[in-house]
């Protein structure tokens, strides 16, 4: 059968155009897939939601300052770090792991960093400045033996991981181990070069209506004094130090694993261990398979470490946590706490852990200014009396998953904005929270994405060239 060449050209042209458009469509539908995935061995877990809201109010009466926080959570995570009696031994459940703790045993947390202007970069870059070289749970985290061997952080301070620290506490921000001499660190602290860290924990402080009070300087430490919890484990005997005293806990010597797994234990139940309801551990007690003892024991704490308390009851209701914390405006510990003064302006940054996730799997905020009566991003309202009325509107904060973005990285040639940081341009001038969240995720796969992007650029140009060849060869014959 004879074919009409003009008709055949039309058909080939139509096929070419359809093929080109089809490939574009497929590319559009499947772009961005095939690289980003959870890889727990590399400490990579990407949360399903990259941002979340937080609402904050603040008030003060001249003596005390109050913060009220509200944030959504699918369910409250109030269990934390437990020991289960299993095959005659006490086995730990609820340690920090990449991503969500598989048994749901990891507490919700809320943290707030506070500065009074003594840490200059904090005002512009918030918590990013505390993320240094080879941080814990980064893919390239420093090994525990390296940290333990460090003469100051390991041997003197007993640290086993590289935690939050301020850049000025290192002679080289690209080297976590380059800690300044102790006398310089002491001088920095005296000058106020530290961040106050309010640290509310749903298990390790909330049941006794307290919050942990910490500080970020050359590391993250508790303030002076006794903390509000301690560890219930005797490493030598490989057994708990304390057990419940049945006379004080309704006849129970331990919790039940099944109750935890079915989340049967609520706010009004016994799901934590207080020092005053415990007694020395008795290995001869008839322990049963599935008995559980909390690995952390709560106590009232003292000194600067126990300055922050919960006002009323911090509870989860109808999908939201609502937590109110209070502290003396002047705690008398200016080297542990930022002292709040009437009409002062401070910088704060918030973070929330939820969904049974710990360590770096949290949602953080950009820095915000807080004015005490003075205007700021939000204002602490002055009131008369013992407790605020809370009739002012909420300050809405968008929190985001920060990924593996460190201060050394942000100041390196890998970051196009490194020069802007040197000029002091604030992060929020260039970046939104959702943008930072996506950047954080992509940075965890930067090498792979860069290669795939280069291939995509080349493949796209090849496709355009292919289209060009088709079009030019299928052009109608010149008349005449």
């Amino acid at each position, binding site marked *: 059968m004879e074919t009409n060449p003009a008709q055949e050209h039309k058909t080939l042209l139509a096929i070419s155009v359809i093929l*080109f458009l089809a490939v574009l469509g497929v590319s559009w539908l499947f772009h961005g897939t095939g690289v980003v995935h959870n890889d727990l061995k590399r400490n990579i877990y990407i949360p399903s939601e990259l941002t979340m809201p937080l609402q904050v109010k603040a008030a003060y009466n001249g003596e005390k300052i109050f913060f009220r926080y509200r944030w959504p959570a699918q369910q409250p995570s109030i269990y934390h770090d437990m020991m289960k009696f299993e095959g005659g031994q006490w086995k730990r459940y609820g340690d920090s792991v990449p991503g969500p703790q598989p048994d749901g045993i990891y507490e919700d947390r809320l943290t707030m960093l506070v500065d009074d202007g003594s840490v200059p970069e904090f005002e512009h870059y918030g918590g990013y400045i505390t993320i240094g070289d080879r941080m814990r749970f980064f893919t390239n985290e420093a090994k525990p033996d390296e940290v333990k061997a460090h003469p100051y952080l390991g041997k003197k301070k007993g640290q086993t991981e590289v935690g939050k620290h301020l850049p000025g506490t290192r002679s080289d921000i690209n080297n976590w181990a380059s800690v300044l001499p102790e006398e310089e660190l002491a001088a920095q602290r005296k000058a106020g070069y530290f961040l106050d860290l309010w640290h509310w924990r749903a298990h390790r402080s909330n049941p006794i209506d307290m919050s942990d009070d910490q500080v970020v300087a050359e590391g993250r430490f508790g303030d002076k004094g006794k903390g509000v919890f301690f560890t219930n484990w005797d490493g030598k005997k490989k057994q708990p130090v304390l057990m419940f005293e049945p006379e004080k806990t309704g006849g129970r010597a331990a919790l039940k694993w099944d109750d935890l797994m079915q989340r049967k234990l609520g706010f009004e139940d016994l799901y934590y261990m207080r020092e005053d309801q415990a007694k020395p551990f008795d290995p001869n007690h008839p322990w049963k398979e599935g008995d559980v003892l909390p690995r952390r024991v709560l106590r009232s704490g003292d000194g600067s470490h126990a300055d922050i308390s919960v006002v009323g009851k911090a509870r989860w209701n109808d999908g939201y946590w609502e937590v109110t914390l209070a502290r003396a405006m002047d705690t008398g510990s200016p080297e542990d706490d930022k002292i709040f003064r009437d009409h002062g302006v401070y910088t704060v940054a918030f973070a929330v852990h939820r969904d049974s996730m710990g360590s770096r799997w949290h949602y953080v905020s950009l820095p915000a200014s807080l004015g005490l009566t003075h205007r700021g991003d939000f204002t602490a309202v002055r009131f008369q009396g013992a407790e605020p009325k809370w009739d002012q509107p909420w300050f809405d904060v968008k929190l985001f998953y920060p990924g593996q973005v460190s201060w050394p990285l942000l100041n390196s040639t890998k*970051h196009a904005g490194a020069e802007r940081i040197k000029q002091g341009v604030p992060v929020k001038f260039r970046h939104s929270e959702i943008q930072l969240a996506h950047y954080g995720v992509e940075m965890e796969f930067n090498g792979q994405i860069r290669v795939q992007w280069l291939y995509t650029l080349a493949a796209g140009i090849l496709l355009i060239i292919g289209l060009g060849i088709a079009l030019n060869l299928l*052009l109608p014959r010149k008349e005449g």
Partner: protein
Amino acid sequence: MAPYHVMLVHFPIALWTVAALVIVLRTFSDGKLARAADAVLTPLLFVGMVTGAAAFAVGLLVWPTEAATSSPLARNHILLAGWSLAYWTVLWVTRWRGGERVWQGLWRWVMLGLAALGVGLQTITGTLGGYLAGNPSIVSEIVRRLGWEVFTTFYLPNWVLAAVVISAVALAALGMVGARARN
């Protein structure tokens, strides 16, 4: 280099936009004005290509290579700019070689479609450039709603890359089949 890049990109954007308008006019009209406008289409596309290449080259010098290729937004800008340049170059070659033939029958609609796609590419490229310069626009929101979050790098999985390469070869083959049939 940033100010020079910003200055230079005005030329290809303006030239390609005018070229697209000429293509629209010529698609729907065989009148005198449309033909007169079409007479400058090839030079418009050529100068657009040359200034586009210059803007692209200068753009690559704005940031250190490591920084530019580590930023999702910058990667996207480079990707779209590269594709825009290649795409409009193909349009120039086609119009230059095809002459009046590109306005015959089905061809004029193909030209219209190509111009629309070219404008789309350069619009997104310009939007991403605006973002990088600190001037975000609503266009990125439109792109987001269409399925691409511009804060994430546009890259393809391996199987789609393979499909793209195979399609590129198939397109060239289709052209050759057509050319052989004509000869």
